[in-house]
C-alpha cells in the first residue's frame, strides 16, 4: 500500500471521481449508440455514406443499386474496359 492510497479521499475528490466515471459512462454509451445506429441503418438497407460510393468502407459488401452500379464500373475500369 503506497502513501497516496492511505490518504483519505476528500469530498471534492470523491465528487470529481463520481463525475469522471459518469462522464466515462456517457462517452461509452454515446459510442455504443453510434455503433448501434450504424448497424440499424445497415440492416434497414439505408446508405450510410450519403450516396458517395467512392471511399465507402463497406462498398464491397453493399447491395444497394448505386453500389452495384459503382462496383460494375469499378470492375470495368480495373479490367481495362470502359
Amino acid at each position, binding site marked *: 500500500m503506497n502513501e497516496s492510497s492511505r490518504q483519505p479521499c476528500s469530498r471534492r475528490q470523491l465528487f470529481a471521481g463520481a463525475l469522471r466515471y459518469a*462522464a466515462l459512462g456517457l*462517452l461509452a454509451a454515446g459510442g455504443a449508440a*453510434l455503433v448501434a445506429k450504424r448497424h440499424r*441503418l445497415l440492416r434497414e438497407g439505408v446508405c450510410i455514406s450519403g450516396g458517395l460510393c467512392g471511399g465507402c*468502407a463497406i462498398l464491397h459488401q453493399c447491395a444497394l443499386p448505386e453500389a452495384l452500379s459503382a462496383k460494375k464500373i469499378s470492375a470495368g475500369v480495373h479490367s481495362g474496359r470502359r
Partner: protein
Amino acid sequence: MMRFAQIITGIALALISCGLVWSAERFPPPDFESGHEMPSPTTPHPRQDIYEYIDVVVLLAALGLASYLVLKKRSRRAIFALTVFSLLYFGFWREGCVCPIGGTQNIVLSIFDAEYVVPITVAAFFLLPLVFTLFFGRTFCAAVCPLGAVQDLVLCRPVAVPSWAESGLRLLAYVYLGAAVLFAATGSAFIICRYDPFISIFRLTGDLNILILGACLLLIGVFVGRPYCRFICPYGVVLRQLSRLSRRRVTITPDECIQCKLCEESCPFGAIKKPAAKWSDQDYGIAKKRLGFFLLILPVLVLLGGWAGSSLKAVAARAHETVRLAERIYLEETGEVTETTDASAAFRATGKEIEELYADASSIRAQFGFGGWFFGGFAGLVIGLKLIGLSVWRQRTDYEADRASCLACGRCFEYCPREHVRLEQAKEVKT
C-alpha cells in the same frame, strides 16, 4: 538548445510549406467558358479503409506515449519529439483529417440527422482523446494534436497575456463551439473544418484567405503561446472541462513544492496558478455580495443570450443552402433580379413546387430559431459562470498547474529544482 531546435524546425517547416504551396499554384485551374468556378477541395481524397484504422492505432499509441512522457518520464525533450512526429504524421501526411476537433461536428450531425452515420474511425478519433483526458489530463493537446504542434513550434518569444484578457478571449471558444454545434445540427455547414486555419498549410493548397488566416495565427503564435488552442479551439472547451475531472494531472514538482518561484514565469500559456492567500474579511464580504448578484443575474443572462441567439435566425439560416436557394428564387419570382443562377436554374429544372421549397426553408429557419435559444442561452450561461468564478475563492498553498488550462507541454518541469534533484537521483540509481 531546445529553443534553437524549435526555431530551426519551425523555419524548415515554414520554408517547405511555402515552397510546396507555391508549386501547387504553378498549375492554375482552367478557365471555364460557362463561368463555372472550380470548387476548392474541402476534404482529402478518400483513402483505403485499412489506413484509417492504422491512423486510429497511431493515435492511440501517441496518446499513450504522450501520457507516459508527461506524467511518468516528465521529459520536455521527449514531448517535443512526439509533437514533431504528430505534426508530420497527423498534420502533413494525414493532411489534418480526420481530426477530433472537426469530428465534433460529425458526432453532432449524427445525433440530429436520423440517416447520417459517423464513420467508426471518426468516432474513435473524437472519443479517444476525451477518455485519455479523463484519466491523464490534456495530453492530447500536449503532443498529439497537429494544430497545437504547429503553433508550439513557432513559439519563440512568449509574452504573458493579462488574466482578464485571457478570460475574455477564452469566451470566443465557447461561442465558436456553440455555433459549430448549431450549424452542424441543422445540417448547414461544418464551420470548424471550413475555417480551420492550419488545414491549408497541412494540405499545401486551399483557400487563400484561410492560408492568410493561418499565417496570421502563426505570426501571433510567435509571441502568444498557442492562440488557436487557448482562445478558439472548440474541442479544447470540452477537454478543459474533462481535464478538471482527470485522475492524474501535471504537477510542476515531482514531490513537494518548496515555493522557490522559479516556475512562475515558465509557462507561456498562463496556466501556472500562484498560491492564493486567504481573503480578508472585507474582501470576503464584497465577494459574497458580488456572488449573490451574479447568481441572481445568471438566469437573466441565459434568457437574454437565448433571445439574442434566436433573433439571429434569419441571418444564420442563410448558411443553409436550401434557405439561400429559397431566397434567390423569391427574388427571381418577385422580379427583383432578372438573371438566374446555376442553383436556381437547376431547381427549376427539377420541376419541384416553389411552395415546397419555401416550406423547407421556413422549417430550417424555425430550426435555427429553436437552436438559437440554446446557442445564445449557452453563451449567456458561460458568461454568467465566468462572472461567478471571479467571486469564488479557491485555496492554493503551492504553485500549481491549472487543471483546465494546462496543455501538459512540460516546459515547467525543468524550472523546478526538485525535478533536478529527482533526475540526479535517477542517474545515480542507473550508474
